[in-house]
């Protein structure tokens, strides 16, 4: 090794390692992963790979260094991640995008109606969470399995947001009038929302943005009391009694990486630290996928071709040239 | 006439695929062995025409594999003929619809199988009353009839045993009781006594004769035992390689065997009460 002329180029990729991404299934994660993969493959001559899986297995794989980068990690949302982070096995780098938010939603036609589809507003005054107690509103969201109650579609079981929303339901005093319906998977939640939306029916659910659902459908977030640290501490403590609740804090979405990898590949970490997608850009790309019925790879290609001004700032000039060249 | 018995008219049966080709060869007069070699088809019966009068014990004899079982299976249509017709009291059995066929089988004809064919999951009694139950007899009554026949074939004490707990001859007697308990006009008996010892056998022969005399049942009886045939048969038919070689009263056959084959079959016996 000593004989090699100044192995200054000694880098993670240069040493022949494969840079493995988590193959995230949802649209934005898929899109971002495709963009970053192309950047490292073309700009930094990395051997790249993507491994599919559901998010638990993939997060776990980051902890074991089977996967190096989880491109859209909603920090604090998954117990697996929290545990691995506290053990120092993984860390969050940069911000994948800023301004992600979460909350409780209803379709906008519930409040405003939708003339084009002939839907009348059924709850024109509905604005905030505290109105949900109103029996008229409860009966709007009636649960077929327990018709006397309304149905609140929570986050899938096991996600951190599920615990928080459960605590909120109690905190807002809605526990007796709504069933806390946990759909089991993100897919089930999405299917329920999109089915209700297509049929113009009222539905009350937890959701987050940026997402394809959020891009596709007109949704209205219900107002909640302002966020406070004390309130949040109470909501996230499963043992506590919840008497009041408040809004979600703004969410940090970052690149989740393996800690050993982070040590071994500072040049990659440097790029990740800078690579923040503007929120409207993510939304635009998601809309592009929906409108044109194309997959994330195509959207990533279009983004890289057309928005060099955005991603150009994340990489070194040589890398930028190489990437641009590869696109043509 | 009210009881006209069974008429078999030109019945042939070919086993195996390509029966058409084989039946043409049968008409050309090729032998069973030749046809087997040429087409792979087995000739079961060839052009059998035969009258079985009502109220008689009609015995069928012949070499092993000569088509005896095949012939009697045609009578209750367990086998469909490749050619020919079968009349039963002047109705063509082959044209019976599903329902008529079932009624025919429950009320008119029953059978003792060469291989017993008992239901392994049913007790002796349940096996024996099968025919009666099929016909709609109330279970109580059917069981009384069944117990009677079980006693007559010497199986009292075994009515709640299962077939796999019986000896070969006992199984055969269950099959026998099953056919007799069905109380039909016609009973087909395919080597029904072959597994019985001489004592029980002669007892059974007596019962059969009595049944025929008292109730005028028509019994088609396959046997290999010439003594038995002579003792109980009103008439004897002899088959060879699927062909009918001779049919007549026992004395006819003993006195005037149609050919050498029949002569060898009845060798050493002379006509009685001739």
């Amino acid at each position, binding site marked *: 090794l000593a004989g090699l002329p100044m192995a200054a180029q000694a880098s993670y990729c240069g040493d022949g390692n494969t840079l493995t991404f988590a193959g995230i299934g949802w649209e934005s994660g898929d899109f971002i992963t495709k963009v970053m993969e192309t950047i490292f493959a073309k700009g930094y001559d990395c051997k790249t790979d993507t491994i599919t899986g559901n998010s638990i297995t993939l997060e776990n794989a980051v902890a074991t260094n089977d996967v190096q980068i989880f491109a859209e990690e909603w920090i604090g949302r998954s117990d697996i991640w929290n545990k691995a982070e506290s053990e120092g096995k993984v860390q969050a780098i940069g911000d994948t995008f800023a301004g992600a938010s979460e909350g409780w939603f209803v379709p906008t036609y519930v409040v405003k109606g939708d003339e084009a589809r002939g839907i009348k507003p059924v709850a024109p005054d509905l604005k905030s969470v505290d109105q949900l107690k109103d029996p008229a509103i409860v009966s709007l969201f009636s649960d077929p399995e327990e018709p006397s109650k309304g149905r609140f579609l929570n986050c899938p079981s*096991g996600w951190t947001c599920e615990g928080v929303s459960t605590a909120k339901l109690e905190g807002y005093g809605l526990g007796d009038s709504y069933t806390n*319906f946990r759909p089991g998977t993100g897919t089930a939640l999405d299917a*329920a929302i999109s089915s209700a939306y297509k*049929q113009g029916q009222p539905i009350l659910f937890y959701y987050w943005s940026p997402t394809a659902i959020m891009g596709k459908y007109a949704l209205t977030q219900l107002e909640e009391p302002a966020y406070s640290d004390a309130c949040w501490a109470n909501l996230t403590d499963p043992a506590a009694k919840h008497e009041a609740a408040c809004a979600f804090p703004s969410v940090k979405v970052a690149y989740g990486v393996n800690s050993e990898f982070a040590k071994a590949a500072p040049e990659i970490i440097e790029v990740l630290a800078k690579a923040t997608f503007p929120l409207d850009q993510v939304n635009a790309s998601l809309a592009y996928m929906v409108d044109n019925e194309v997959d994330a790879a195509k959207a990533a290609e279009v983004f890289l071709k057309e928005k060099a001004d955005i991603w150009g700032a994340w990489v070194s000039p040589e890398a930028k040239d190489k990437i641009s060249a590869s696109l043509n | 006439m009210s009881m006209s018995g069974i008429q078999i008219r030109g019945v042939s049966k070919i086993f195996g695929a390509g029966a058409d080709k084989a039946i043409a060869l049968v008409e050309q007069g090729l032998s069973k062995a030749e046809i087997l070699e040429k087409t792979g088809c087995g000739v079961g019966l060839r052009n059998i025409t035969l009258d079985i009068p009502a109220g008689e014990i009609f015995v069928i004899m012949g070499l092993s594999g000569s088509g005896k079982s095949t012939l009697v299976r045609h009578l209750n249509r367990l086998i469909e003929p490749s050619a020919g017709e079968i009349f039963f009291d002047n109705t063509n059995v082959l044209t019976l619809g599903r329902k008529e066929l079932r009624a025919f089988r429950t009320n008119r004809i029953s059978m003792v199988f060469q291989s017993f064919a008992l239901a392994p999951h049913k007790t002796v009694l349940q096996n024996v009353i099968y025919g009666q139950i099929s016909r709609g007899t109330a279970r109580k009554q059917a069981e009384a009839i069944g117990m009677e026949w079980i006693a007559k074939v010497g199986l009292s004490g075994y009515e709640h045993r299962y077939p796999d707990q019986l000896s070969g001859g006992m199984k055969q007697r269950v099959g026998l009781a*099953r056919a007799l308990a*069905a109380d039909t006009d016609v009973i087909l008996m395919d080597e029904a006594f072959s597994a019985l010892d001489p004592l029980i056998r002669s007892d059974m022969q007596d019962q059969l004769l009595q049944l025929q005399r008292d109730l005028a049942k028509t019994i088609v009886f396959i046997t290999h035992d010439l003594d038995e045939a002579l003792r109980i048969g009103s008439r004897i038919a002899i088959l060879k390689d699927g062909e009918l070689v001779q049919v007549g009263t026992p004395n006819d056959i003993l006195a005037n065997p149609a050919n050498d084959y029949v002569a060898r079959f009845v060798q050493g016996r002379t006509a009685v009460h001739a």
Partner: protein
Amino acid sequence: MFPESLNFSIRKPINHFVDMLVTNYGSTFRAISDAILQVLLLIEGVLRGTPWWVVIIAFMVLAWLGTRRVVLTIGVGIMLLVVGMLGLWDQTMQTLALMTMATLISVVIGIPLGILAAKFRSVQRIILPVLDVMQTMPSFVYLIPALMLFGLGKVPAVLATIIYAVPPLIRLTDLGIRQVDHEVVEASTAFGGSPMRILFGTELPLAMPTIMAGLNQTIMMALSMVVVASMIGARGLGETVLNGIQTLDVGKGLEAGIGIVILAIVLDRITQGFGKPRRFK
């Protein structure tokens, strides 16, 4: 690699078809769904409303009637007690309601279809590839449209469970009947047994060991769908498993998994007991 020039896709028409169904016929399907739901809720209500010890005793009585085996009867009692002690009683009753319903419907559908397949070669020829599809088409592919049409929860869960679990019962009923000794059937025919009597008196009893192997597989496969059922919002043990998995809490998942296994064993042993001919008990 396969040449791209030959490619075609059914993706868009399918997606548009699903959209159309959901948009236009959603309410019809909801009505159907609600009817099924009422039955389910009834069973569940009974099971959850009954005190735990009554349920355990009821199952022990069933086990005794089915098998006449003391050890097994006590075993059933202990296993159900374990479920309760693991703190899973309520979830277990929810899952039990779902599985009982799915198994019952599977038997009602599966055995007659198996019989038809055994009797008519044409039915068999049509049914076999359908069963292949039912067993191997990933359930979420049809669950998504089902979710959209029937709503989240128990109804699509029961449907998916039946679709996945009924094929082995159909297949083995078919096989069992075809394997019945031809001579015995022939004898029944010769004595004028009606097709129904031959079927119920001879063919089904003799095919019983094979049919019961099918029912065993149906129960096993139904219980292997518990987690999928929870993925679409059916409550019960599956939800606990899912929660354990998603929080990497293997112990929690295992506890609920044990609950599922116990349910499977209890349901299986009892049904097998009833399926065994009296002679061999």
